[in-house]
C-alpha cells in the first residue's frame, strides 16, 4: 500500500506568531476545527491543528448574492468554486525531518523514522500541500514507549488511536477538567486504571462520592459500570473513613480513623473559614500546643466548657497561661464540630494511616471513600491530615534514597514509589485562600522531586489558585462553558488564544482537549467509552508481549 493521503489545501500565508493560513481545496464541511493536519514540504512534515475555519470570497459581493438565482446551475457552480473559498488557520506545533520525499512503501512505512518531531522553528513555503494526518503521522507524533502507552481516545475525524504517555503524565502534576456531565469521572477512572495497570506508580484517590471503588451506574446508558477495586482486586485497597463504615454495602479493606495526636494546630488553622474561627485563634492554638505538646487536641477536647474555678475547665487553663479566656472558650465551642467526629479517636489498635502509607509504598493503590462524611469540613480535614503525613514520609524516603543510592547494599537505597494523589473537587483545597495552607499546593509546586504528584479533578478550574494551575504539566479538559474556566485551563500555554475556541466548542460529552507536558502537541480527541470492552482490552494487555500490545491497542480501538 502506498501512502498517498488526499491533499485538502495549500498554504497561502502565515507566520510563526500567527500560524499558517491555507486555502481549502475540498468542501468546507470536510474539515473540522481541531483536525490534526500535516503540511508537507520536501523532507519536512509540519504537524499542526486546525484552529479556525473561515469562509471568504475574492469579492464580498460574490458571497452576498446567490449566484444560482441568476445564472445557470453549472455556471454558478463554477463561479462559486472560483470566487468563494474556505481558509484554514493552522497552528503548527511540531516539525519532523522524514528523511525522504518519496512516497512511502509498505516496507518503509513499517520502519521507524530516525528523527523525532521537534517544536516548530521554520515555516513551510507558500503553496505547500496540506493534508489530514494519517495513522502513520499520529504514531510518529504520539510515539511513546510501549510500556507507558495508553490509548485514551482517537482523533475525531479518522479515528486514529491517540496514546497518552503515562510516564510523562505522572511525572508532573496534572489536571482533568470539564463541566458537570461531560464524562470527567469516567475519564478519570480510565486514566487511573491505566496508571494502576501500568504498575509504576501508586495512586491515592480521595473519592468524595464513593464512585471509584465499587462501580456506579452510567447516567447515559443506565448500565452498571465496574469500579477499580472490582477489576484490580488486591492491587487496589479500599479504605472507608470512620470505623465500621461500609461503601455501598461493601466491606472496605480497612477503616480510616485518626488519633487525636495526629492533629496539629496547623491543621486547625487551615479550617479557619470552615469553622468560622477568629483572628485570635492562632495565638490560642499556639498556647495549647505549648502547654500540652502533641496531646493538645485531646486535652483541649476533654476540658470543661464552663466553671472558672474547675481545674479542668477552659477558663482555668486560659487564666493560668495568660490566654484570653473569651478567645479560648470561643475556640473550644467552635472545635466541637471536630470533637464530635467519630473518625477522630484517642487511640487505635493499628494505625490505619500507617497502613495506607505502607500500601502505597508497596505500589498498592488506595481509594479513600468518604461514605457518610460528606461535608466540606470532613473533606478538608481528612485530605489535609493524610496528605501531610504522606508528604513527610515521601520526603524522608527521598532524602534517605538520595543519601544512600550510591550504596546499593543499604536498606535505605530504595527509590521511593512514585505516588499520584488524585483529588476530586480540587478547588475546595486549592482555591486562592486555602492553597497556601494545605499540603497540596506544596505538592503541586515542589513534590515532583520527592516522587509525589497531584492529579486534580475539577469542574471549576478558575477557582483553583493560579500558581497551582501553572504547575500542571498535563491538562485534559472536556467541554467548559465559562470563559474564566477556559482561560484557567489554558493559562501558561503557548497558542492559548487559538485553543480557546476549540475548548469552548467541544462536544458536551466524550470529547476532550489534551494539552501540556504529557502530550507532544495539543489535540482534541474523542475519548474512549468506559465499559467492559475497555477493561477487556486494558487487562488483556498484561498477557501480551510489548510488540503485541501496540498492535492490539490500535486494532481493538478501531473496532470501537
Amino acid at each position, binding site marked *: 500500500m502506498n501512502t498517498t493521503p488526499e491533499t485538502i489545501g495549500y498554504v497561502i500565508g502565515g507566520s510563526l506568531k500567527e500560524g499558517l493560513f491555507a486555502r481549502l481545496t475540498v468542501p468546507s464541511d470536510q474539515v473540522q476545527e481541531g483536525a490534526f493536519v500535516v503540511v508537507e514540504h520536501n523532507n519536512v512534515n509540519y504537524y499542526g491543528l486546525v484552529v479556525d475555519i473561515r469562509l471568504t470570497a*475574492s*469579492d464580498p*459581493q*460574490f458571497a452576498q448574492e446567490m449566484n444560482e438565482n*441568476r*445564472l*445557470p*446551475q*453549472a*455556471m454558478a457552480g*463554477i*463561479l462559486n*468554486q*472560483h*470566487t468563494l473559498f474556505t481558509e484554514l488557520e493552522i497552528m503548527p506545533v511540531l516539525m519532523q525531518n522524514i528523511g525522504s520525499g518519496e512516497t512511502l512503501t509498505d516496507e518503509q512505512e513499517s520502519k521507524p523514522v530516525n528523527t523525532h518531531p521537534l517544536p516548530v522553528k521554520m515555516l513551510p513555503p507558500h503553496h505547500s500541500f496540506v493534508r489530514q494526518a494519517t495513522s502513520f503521522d499520529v504514531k510518529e507524533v504520539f510515539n511513546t514507549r510501549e510500556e507507558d502507552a495508553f490509548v485514551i481516545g482517537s482523533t475525531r475525524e479518522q479515528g486514529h488511536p491517540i496514546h497518552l504517555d503515562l510516564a510523562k503524565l505522572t511525572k508532573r502534576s496534572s489536571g482533568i477538567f470539564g463541566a458537570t456531565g461531560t464524562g470527567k469521572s469516567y475519564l478519570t477512572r480510565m486514566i487511573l486504571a491505566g496508571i494502576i495497570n501500568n504498575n509504576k506508580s501508586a495512586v491515592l484517590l480521595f473519592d468524595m462520592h464513593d464512585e471509584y471503588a465499587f462501580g456506579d451506574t452510567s447516567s447515559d446508558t443506565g448500565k452498571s459500570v465496574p469500579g477499580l477495586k472490582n477489576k484490580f482486586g488486591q492491587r487496589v485497597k479500599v479504605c472507608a473513613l470512620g470505623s465500621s463504615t461500609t461503601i455501598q454495602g461493601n466491606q472496605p479493606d480497612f477503616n480510616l480513623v485518626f488519633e487525636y495526636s495526629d492533629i496539629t494546630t496547623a491543621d486547625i488553622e487551615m479550617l479557619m473559614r470552615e469553622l468560622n474561627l477568629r483572628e485570635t485563634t492562632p495565638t490560642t492554638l499556639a498556647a495549647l500546643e505549648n502547654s500540652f505538646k502533641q496531646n493538645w487536641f485531646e486535652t483541649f477536647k476533654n476540658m470543661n466548657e464552663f466553671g472558672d474555678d474547675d481545674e479542668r475547665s477552659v477558663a482555668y487553663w486560659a487564666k493560668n497561661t495568660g490566654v484570653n479566656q473569651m478567645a479560648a472558650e470561643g475556640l473550644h465551642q467552635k472545635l466541637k464540630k471536630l470533637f464530635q467526629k467519630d473518625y477522630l479517636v484517642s487511640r487505635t489498635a493499628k494505625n490505619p494511616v500507617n497502613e495506607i502509607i505502607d500500601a502505597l509504598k508497596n505500589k498498592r493503590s488506595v481509594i479513600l471513600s468518604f461514605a457518610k462524611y460528606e461535608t466540606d469540613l470532613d473533606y478538608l480535614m481528612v485530605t489535609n491530615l493524610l496528605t501531610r503525613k504522606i508528604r513527610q514520609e515521601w520526603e524522608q524516603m527521598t532524602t534517605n534514597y538520595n543519601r544512600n543510592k550510591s550504596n546499593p547494599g543499604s536498606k535505605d537505597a530504595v527509590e521511593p514509589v512514585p505516588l499520584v494523589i488524585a483529588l476530586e473537587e480540587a478547588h475546595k483545597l486549592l482555591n486562592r485562600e486555602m492553597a497556601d495552607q494545605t499540603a497540596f499546593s506544596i505538592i503541586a509546586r515542589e513534590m515532583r522531586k520527592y516522587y509525589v504528584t497531584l492529579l486534580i479533578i475539577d469542574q471549576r478550574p478558575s477557582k483553583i489558585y493560579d500558581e497551582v494551575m501553572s504547575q500542571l504539566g498535563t491538562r485534559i479538559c472536556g467541554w467548559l462553558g465559562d470563559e474564566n474556566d477556559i482561560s484557567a485551563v489554558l493559562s501558561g500555554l503557548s497558542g492559548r488564544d487559538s485553543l480557546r475556541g476549540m475548548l469552548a466548542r467541544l462536544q458536551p460529552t466524550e470529547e476532550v482537549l489534551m494539552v501540556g507536558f504529557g502530550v507532544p502537541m495539543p489535540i482534541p480527541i474523542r475519548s474512549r467509552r468506559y465499559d467492559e470492552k475497555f477493561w477487556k482490552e486494558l487487562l488483556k494487555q498484561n498477557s501480551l508481549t510489548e510488540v503485541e500490545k501496540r498492535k492490539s491497542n490500535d486494532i481493538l480501538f478501531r473496532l470501537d
Partner: protein
Amino acid sequence: MNSQAFGRILSADIHECFAACRISEPDLPPFGSLVRIPIRETPRLEVYGLVSDIRIEEDGFLRQIASNENVSEEVMQDARVNRNVPIVMRILFTGSISDDGISHMVPPHPPLTLNAIYRCGEEEIATFSSCGGYGYLRHILDARDISIPELLAAHVAQALIANKNCGNPEWGKNLLAELIQQKRAQKDELLRMLNALKSLDFESTAEAK
C-alpha cells in the same frame, strides 16, 4: 479547412486588421468567427483572428434609393446585391500558426494588404481554442472599442459546438473557470460576460448537430 477566401485585407496593425468582402460571398463568416490569414508559406506563418465587427457602409447612391418611393423591386435588389461598396470586417488577432505550432501571441508582423482571409472549420476552431490554456482569451478581454461580452459570447457559442463535436466536451466549463479566474477581481465586468454567456449550453456533453 475552407479553401475559398471570403475577403482581403484593407489595413492592418499588430493587433487587428480590416478586411473587405463581397456581400454576394456565399460563406461570409458571422460575428465571432475564427478566421485565418496566411502571410507566407515558407516558413509557414498564418494569423488567426476573430471577426469582431462587421460594417456595411453606404455608397451615396443608396440614400437616393432609400428615400425614393418609386423604386422598382428589381433596382432595389440590384442595389442590395450587386453594390460596389464592400462589407468591411474588423478582425481581432488572437494568435498565429507556424511550423512550430499554434501560438496565442500576437503575430510577429501584421498581414499585408490584400492578403486573402479564410474562414476556419470546426476542427481548426477546436484545435486553436483548446491549446495553450485559453491564452488567446486575453486578446478578447483586452480589446478596445468592442463589446467584449458580445464578442466573447459569439465566439464561445461557435467554439463550444466545435469542441463538443471534436470530442472535447469539457472545453466550455474549463473556459468558464479560466474566465472567472482572470476577471474575478472585476466583478461587474465578469458578471456582464457571464450574463452574455448564460444562454449557452455548458452542461451538455453530447455532440452538437
